[in-house]
């Protein structure tokens, strides 16, 4: 195991940021810490890096106890959301920083910097200042800087959070390819479930200072451990007391055995998709069903028509948490 976290807890005053977190991250993997803002995932990342100290528990990196070790002795590369560039140094100097601190020979530093700048496609910007780079370029520079010291683990805190949507998408695919090339154990924090599902080998869902679920993107998506994970990974609706995904629900215009009868209350077209709101007799809240436009045309139903809903046996579902459903009702009215 590359990173081993045992019973880590952290409080800020009366606020519990992390509560007895236990986690083992295998060597060479790309792991996402996924969760809502303020859920404790960044705090956990900073504790691993030694930028924050845990109130309790232990952190082991590559088998060595790092709990009391200061940040500069952990051999950890850290990439910050807002780049944390050394603004008075050129791009090459930024990347060389960790090597120069270690008093490596000049020739070696130069070669390593060149190699890293090629890796992050910034070789022609070596002599620019960070302020002359775009956000995406700055973050690639920060990544090269963190990789320069050959860290045992690479930690990224919302690395694409400050970039616009298009650059985000490009950079996260690029990060995946880079990881496949470099193979350093990597942990990145994100609140974007799409980012985690697309890039990570393994996802750790963290909420209110606790680990909700650990698994591969497929495991999480197909078998969410609870209501929270289910809701966090994409749009959901409730049907017959279960939290389900709107696109998993099957709709037919004729009564079928085991299907739930309801009435169409609304039809909204969103691009290639049609979203139906269906009021069933068994629930106070209407269920939301999404289906391809072609399927909807085939069905030929509109507002006021009766429909029958059923959930395929293999569709992901979790029991609806009563408190959460109440909350949704409150919002809807």
């Amino acid at each position, binding site marked *: 195991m590359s990173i081993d976290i045992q019973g880590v807890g952290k409080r800020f005053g009366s606020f519990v940021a992390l509560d007895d977190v236990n986690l083992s991250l295998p060597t060479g993997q790309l792991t996402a810490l996924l969760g809502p803002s303020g859920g404790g995932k960044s705090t956990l990342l900073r504790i691993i890096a030694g930028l924050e100290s845990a109130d309790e528990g232990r952190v082991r990196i590559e088998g060595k106890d790092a709990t009391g070790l200061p*940040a*500069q*002795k952990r051999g950890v590369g850290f990439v910050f959301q*807002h780049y944390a560039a050394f*603004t*008075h140094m050129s791009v090459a100097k930024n990347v060389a920083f*960790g090597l120069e*601190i270690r008093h490596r020979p000049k020739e070696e530093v130069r070669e390593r910097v060149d190699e890293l700048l090629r890796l992050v496609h910034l070789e022609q910007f070596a002599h620019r200042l960070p302020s*002359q780079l775009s956000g995406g370029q700055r973050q690639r520079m920060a990544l090269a*800087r963190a990789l320069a010291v050959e860290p045992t683990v690479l930690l990224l805190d919302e690395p694409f959070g400050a970039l616009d949507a298009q650059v985000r998408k490009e950079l996260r695919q690029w990060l995946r390819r880079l990881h496949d090339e470099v193979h350093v154990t990597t942990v990145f924090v994100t609140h974007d479930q799409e980012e985690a599902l697309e890039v990570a080998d393994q996802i750790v869902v963290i909420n209110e200072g606790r680990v909700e679920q650990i698994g591969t993107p497929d495991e999480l998506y197909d078998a969410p451990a609870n209501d929270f994970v289910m809701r966090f990974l994409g749009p959901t609706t409730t049907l017959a007391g279960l939290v389900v995904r709107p696109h998993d629900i099957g709709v037919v215009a004729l009564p079928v055995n085991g299907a739930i009868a309801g009435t169409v209350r609304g039809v909204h077209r969103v691009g290639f998709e049609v979203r139906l709101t269906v009021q069933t007799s068994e629930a106070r809240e209407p269920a939301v069903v999404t289906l391809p436009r072609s399927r909807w045309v085939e069905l030929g139903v509109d507002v006021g028509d009766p429909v029958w809903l059923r959930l395929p046996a293999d569709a992901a579902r979790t029991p609806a948490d009563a408190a959460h459903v109440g909350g949704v009702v409150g919002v809807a009215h």
Partner: protein
Amino acid sequence: MTTLADSAARTPLRGRRAAARSTLTRGTGVTLGLSVLWLSVLVLVPLGAVVAAAASGGVAGAWSVLTNPQTLAAITLTVGQAALVTVLNVVVGTAIAWVLVRDRFVGKRAIEVIIDVPFALPTIVAGLVLLGLYGPRSPVGVDVANTRAAVFLAFAFVTLPFVVRAVQPVLEQLDPDVERAARSLGASGVQTWARVLLPALAPAIAAGAAMSFARAVSEYGALVLISGNLALRTEVTSVRILTYIENGQLSEAAVVATVLLAIALVVLVALDLLQRRVARRG
């Protein structure tokens, strides 16, 4: 014949001048004229007059003024103490700015206000305060009156805010993650300071230091009461100028004034060059 390097160096200048000319409309032309006139009446003409008055005694006259032991002692004392105070301000001012930006504590706002008191206080009042507290009848038993320490103290009092106020906004802009990044890359606390923080703050510190130095060199009110103005010992340049004027030696006064002017110019040009460097860094 111009070399390639020559023309390359001149091109941006020419470009800038052309751009400035093209933005002038009739309205802005009038504004520019008024600005130049105002600047001339207030600053350029009086300064020119001082330099002209200094020159009226000829080179020999100026030389004899500058080699006068009392004048030389005054200039040496002023520049020396101003430099010492500036060094102090660089250290203490940066520390104060650091505390004000990075730490939260009770009474922070009060300190923010107190820092600016030397800006707002008439300097003669500052002199009175210093005399009362560190003079012959000091309630705390510290009497520096009529010593060089009094000059240093008065300079320190009036120049306190400069470095603090120059460094504070730059430090506020500096992301604390930059330090964390340096630490995670293996830098110790000292290395983080020396390689990351100081270079980032250096232009601001230098700007504050230049202003602090210029202000100290020109100080009069805060020290005139407590320093005793003893010839060859505690007499500063501004007091020396006044003495010349009181004796009716206007051209001698002008020579010393021109020296102060030259020192101020050197400092301000240095400051401007630094600010250009900062602007380029962005």
